[in-house]
């Protein structure tokens, strides 16, 4: 444009101003001028808005204006620019373009704009301008005047709207001038206010969640208790229907069903609406559905002469819409109504006629109906019958081959015969009993002649359907019984009994197995079973068979001349152990044998085929407390198995004389052992042996007596000289030698020996030497040597008493002595009696000796030495002593109290204190001090031991 001369520019303006009216006056001008100026733009006229219409429900403004057309024959490209502002803030909401073609016609254009907030929230202003050939014109373009949209009224907007889940929604509260919005809430939550104008505030809710059925309340609270509110429904658009299916049950209505898919969350007037449109006929129906049911149903009328239907199910709600389609051939989608009014008629014993009604018009198809026949005796049977359909007709079917005099139950269902789709529901059940008919055969009978041959017993199997009469039975009933009919055993098989027999060629009309059920005292009830002539085995079963009961079967062969007993068979369905053992008695006993005899057992008690007896015996007294012989696991138990059933006695040999034996007898079958029968038998004494055992020693003694008498008589002078001299020699008396030393080498005096025989001497040593003897180490620790007595008595003056005796065997290991314990208080030294004569040990080695000597025994309690030194003890200390595990059997204080000023030193006190039980190695104290010691100034007499006793005994 810059290269264009100004005059040309003005000329263009002029031309445009001339516009269409000018060209109408000069029809040739356009054709002349346009080619000339086709490369130039025109100055646009200022547009004029014809109308600006708000749609408050959709927040939409509709702008309409006229383009005034063009004078040129060629269309000019026109671009329209539209600007929208909001009041007060004068916010430039949007500026959008709209393109059109200017033609010769004056066209009214319309343009819609959707606001992101309700139009009621604030005023909106719209203006418009346009260009022609915008790319080549940058001149002045005039805007139209502002066109306003001024909402009136107040309230909370938008009112009662529906949006999709996840939408962003702006709510504005428009109020009167002078009021103030205090807060606005969406549901239970307050949102920050956005001030739109002096009388309008807003909140913006982002990503709205699905609302409740009654919607989400938005409340605007204003000053002066003002309040406004609205309800927003947030839900989902309709889901595409699933499993759309249409069928007819009567050719009157087509029933379409579908599943709605995801719930919209919108209910009532906002709920999902369904409409069924048939596109071939163009008809549609609105569907009333229950929103709470999973499956929706809608009906569409069957149209005359139309077999194919193209259904479109339209689904819509305020948020959106969708659809599903289905093309069906109605004849292939027949699910007939349930047959009703079923009746059964018939005057035959084997056939009936069924009638039923189906409420539908099936004239153009064939029906396939299924009749279910059931009776008490047999399984259900289904009978299919195909028949032409009718219009609301009654259908009939005949059933043959029924059993006479039988109660049947019938029901019917139907479907389309040519294109099966679905069965209808079953009709109600109808019962019918067929008529009676003559019996096809006679009853199954058996006859038994009495042994005398004068009477005949007739048995027959009851057929409840037959009425029976006994006519003449004097026909050829002959039973041949052979002389040597053998009896076999049958084998149990499952819950029956297996019987087999050889084939008898002359038995032309089969076999009969007859048996008898016996229950207690009632007479045996006969039963039988017939088998064809080619049968050679059978399993006889009966509900009356019981395990452990013997059944006798008779096999009869049938031939033209009568029945012949072929063999007898016995058997059990299951063998059980015998109920009891046979009764048995001891017939004879000797010193080494017992003869027992037993009785036969009745068959009822056997409960199986008896296979033998089991005799168990072992030594045993009759003692109810002892376990039973068979349960005791006695190693001497001996068992004898008797398999020879004819044997009824048994002699038990190799028994001991005068011994009690327990005998148990049991019977056994394949089912097991019976409970035992027990007897106790004492064998007789062996008299010969006893006599010999007495006589031989008596004879020997007599003989020895005689020999001794003879010897003594002959040597009487020597005996007198040796044993009874006139002057006795003491040295020859060995009986007095034990007084010297009972333990030194004289092993013959066993009665005085202690075990183990340790030096059984008592040594009492009184010494004035300060050097401790080896014996002292047993009673004193190194610490005790250092203790200075309070009374100033010297250890040299003390008397040591060592008393030893044969100690009991001590195996207890010493535990670690408490080394931190003050030795002077509690140390007690024990001596091994056998180490009495140890070499003297140096004082500095005494601690080691203590350890050595204390090994091997642990006292039950160590008495505190201090307690012996201090007369008055604190109660606490006494208590602590009481609580100790062991206490001496005498009061050690009392012992010292008796000799408080005795020459005995602390060590001597220690000796006393260390005595415990008389059984203990350190029991060196008198438990009961001798009375003569009480006043004795010498503590050396306080010792006590067995050896002491022995030594003192002669003094006594």
């Amino acid at each position: 444009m810059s290269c264009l001369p100004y005059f040309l520019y003005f000329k263009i303006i002029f031309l445009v101003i001339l516009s269409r009216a000018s060209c109408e006056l000069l029809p040739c001008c356009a054709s002349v001028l346009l080619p000339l100026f086709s490369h130039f733009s025109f100055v646009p006229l200022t547009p004029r808005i014809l109308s600006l219409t708000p749609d408050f429900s959709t927040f939409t403004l509709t702008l309409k204006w006229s383009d005034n057309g063009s004078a040129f024959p060629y269309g000019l490209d026109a671009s329209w620019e539209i600007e929208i502002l909001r009041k007060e803030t004068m916010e430039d909401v949007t500026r959008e373009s709209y393109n059109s073609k200017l033609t010769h016609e004056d066209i009214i254009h319309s343009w819609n704009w959707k606001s992101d907030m309700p139009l009621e929230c604030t005023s909106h202003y719209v203006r418009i301008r346009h260009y022609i050939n915008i790319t080549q014109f940058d001149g002045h373009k005039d805007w139209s005047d502002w066109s306003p949209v001024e909402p009136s009224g107040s309230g909370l907007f938008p009112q009662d709207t529906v949006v999709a889940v996840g939408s962003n929604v702006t709510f504005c509260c428009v109020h009167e001038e002078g009021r103030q919005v205090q807060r606005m809430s969406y549901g239970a939550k307050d949102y920050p206010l956005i001030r739109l104008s002096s009388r309008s505030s807003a909140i913006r809710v982002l990503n709205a969640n699905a609302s409740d059925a009654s919607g989400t309340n938005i409340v605007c609270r204003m000053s002066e208790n003002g309040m406004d509110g609205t309800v927003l429904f947030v839900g989902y658009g309709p889901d595409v229907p699933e499993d759309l299916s249409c069928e007819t049950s009567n050719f009157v209505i087509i029933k379409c069903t579908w599943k709605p898919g995801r719930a919209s969350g919108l209910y009532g007037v906002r709920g999902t609406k369904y409409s069924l449109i048939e596109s071939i006929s163009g008809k549609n129906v609105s569907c009333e559905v229950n929103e709470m049911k999973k499956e929706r149903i809608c009906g569409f009328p069957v149209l005359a002469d139309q077999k194919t239907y193209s259904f479109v199910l339209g689904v819509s709600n305020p948020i959106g819409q969708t659809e599903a389609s289905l093309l069906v051939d109605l004849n292939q989608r027949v699910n007939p109504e349930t047959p009703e009014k079923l009746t059964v008629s018939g005057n035959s014993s084997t056939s009936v006629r069924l009638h039923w009604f189906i409420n539908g018009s099936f004239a153009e198809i064939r029906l396939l109906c299924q009749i279910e026949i059931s009776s008490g005796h047999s399984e259900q049977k289904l009978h299919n019958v195909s028949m032409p359909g009718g219009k609301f007709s009654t259908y009939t079917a005949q059933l043959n081959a029924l059993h006479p005099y039988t109660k049947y139950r019938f029901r019917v269902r139907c479907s389309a015969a040519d294109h099966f789709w679905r069965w209808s529901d079953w009709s109600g059940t109808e019962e019918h009993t067929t008529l009676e008919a003559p019996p096809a055969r006679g009853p199954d009978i058996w006859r038994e002649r009495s042994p005398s041959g004068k009477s005949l017993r007739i048995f027959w199997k009851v057929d409840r359907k037959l009425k029976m009469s006994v006519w003449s039975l004097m026909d050829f009933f002959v039973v041949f019984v052979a002389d040597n009919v053998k009896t076999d055993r049958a084998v149990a098989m499952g819950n029956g009994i297996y019987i087999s027999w050889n084939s008898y060629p002359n038995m032309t009309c089969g076999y009969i197995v007859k048996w008898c059920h016996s229950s207690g005292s009632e007479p045996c009830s006969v039963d039988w079973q017939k088998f064809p002539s080619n049968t050679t085995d059978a399993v006889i079963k009966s509900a009356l068979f019981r395990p452990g009961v013997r059944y006798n079967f008779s096999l009869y062969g049938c031939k033209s001349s009568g029945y012949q007993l072929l063999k007898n068979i016995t058997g059990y369905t299951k063998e059980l152990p015998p109920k009891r053992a046979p009764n048995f008695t001891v017939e004879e006993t000797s010193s080494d044998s017992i003869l027992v005899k037993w009785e036969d057992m009745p068959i009822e008690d056997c409960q199986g085929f008896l296979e033998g007896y089991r005799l168990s015996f072992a030594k045993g007294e009759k003692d109810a407390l002892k376990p039973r012989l068979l349960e005791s696991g006695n190693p001497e138990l001996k068992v004898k198995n008797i398999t020879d059933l004819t044997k009824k006695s048994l002699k038990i040999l190799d028994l001991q004389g005068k011994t009690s034996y327990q005998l148990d007898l049991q019977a056994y079958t394949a089912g097991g052992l019976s409970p035992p029968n027990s007897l106790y038998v004492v064998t007789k004494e062996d008299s010969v042996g006893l006599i010999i055992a007495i006589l031989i020693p008596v004879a020997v003694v007599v003989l020895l007596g005689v020999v001794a008498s003879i010897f003594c008589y002959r040597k009487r002078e020597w005996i007198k000289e040796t044993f009874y001299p006139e002057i006795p020699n003491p040295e020859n008396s060995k009986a007095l030698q034990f007084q010297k030393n009972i333990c030194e080498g004289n092993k013959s005096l066993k009665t005085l020996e202690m075990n183990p025989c340790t030096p059984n001497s008592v040594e009492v040593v009184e010494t004035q030497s300060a050097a401790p003897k080896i014996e002292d180490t047993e009673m004193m620790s190194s610490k005790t040597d250092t203790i200075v007595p309070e009374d100033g008595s010297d250890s040299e003056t003390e008397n040591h008493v060592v008393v030893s005796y044969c100690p009991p065997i001590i195996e207890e290991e010493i535990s670690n002595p408490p080394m931190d314990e003050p030795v002077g208080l509690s140390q007690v030294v024990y001596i091994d009696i056998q180490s009495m004569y140890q070499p003297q040990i140096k004082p500095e080695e005494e601690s080691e000796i203590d350890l050595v000597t204390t090994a091997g025994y642990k006292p039950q309690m160590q008495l505190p030495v201090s307690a012996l030194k201090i007369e008055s003890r604190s109660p606490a200390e006494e208590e602590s002593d009481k609580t100790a595990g062991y206490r001496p059997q005498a009061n050690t204080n009392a012992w010292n109290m008796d000799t408080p000023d005795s020459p005995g030193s602390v060590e001597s006190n220690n000796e006393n204190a260390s005595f415990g039980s008389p059984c203990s190695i350190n029991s060196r104290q008198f438990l009961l001090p001798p009375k003569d010691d009480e006043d004795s100034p010498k503590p050396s007499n306080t010792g006590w031991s067995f050896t002491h006793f022995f030594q003192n005994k002669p003094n006594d």
Partner: protein
Amino acid sequence: MAAADTPSATLRHHDLCSRGIRLARKMRSDVSDLLDIYVERQGLDASISVAAVDGVPAAAAERWAEQTGTQRLLDNLAAYRAFRTLLAQMLEEQREQLGDADAELGPALAAVLLQVSAFAYHLEELLELESRGAPTEEGSEPPAPPRLSLFEQKLRGLGVLRELAQWAVRSVRDLRQLAKHGPGSGMALGLLESQ
């Protein structure tokens, strides 16, 4: 008034009052439960204050003690007739808005509506016994309410139920007064009591 003076009429009057009191108490209890359900299902704040709703009769009376028995019955009857209409309207709106979705609020509303109808009938019987006769409903039919927004409907429903609860209490007191003083007490019952 002759009928009202007979012993049998007195007995019947007393019986009707007793039954009416029981009905009103039950109604009060059910309305209280319904209010809870209503507030919860409508998503309302239980403490929200609702201004007087057009067409909803107020239970508060300026000079309650000075009212005669007949006047009390007439006031009660007018109120419960109005409630019957309002509750029916609420029930219809409820069905329209919620469809089959709400299985609790709708039946509860219907139950209270039934009780209100029964109580209104009961009041009519009492008025008959007073030889006064119940006024026809045509005159007392409230004008059709303007179309309200959903939020306004919710608030109005809340107002109706709250006022109904108040009326149930007042009805108990009114019927107690009536029962005390027997049929045909033309004077103000409160004044009679004070004498």
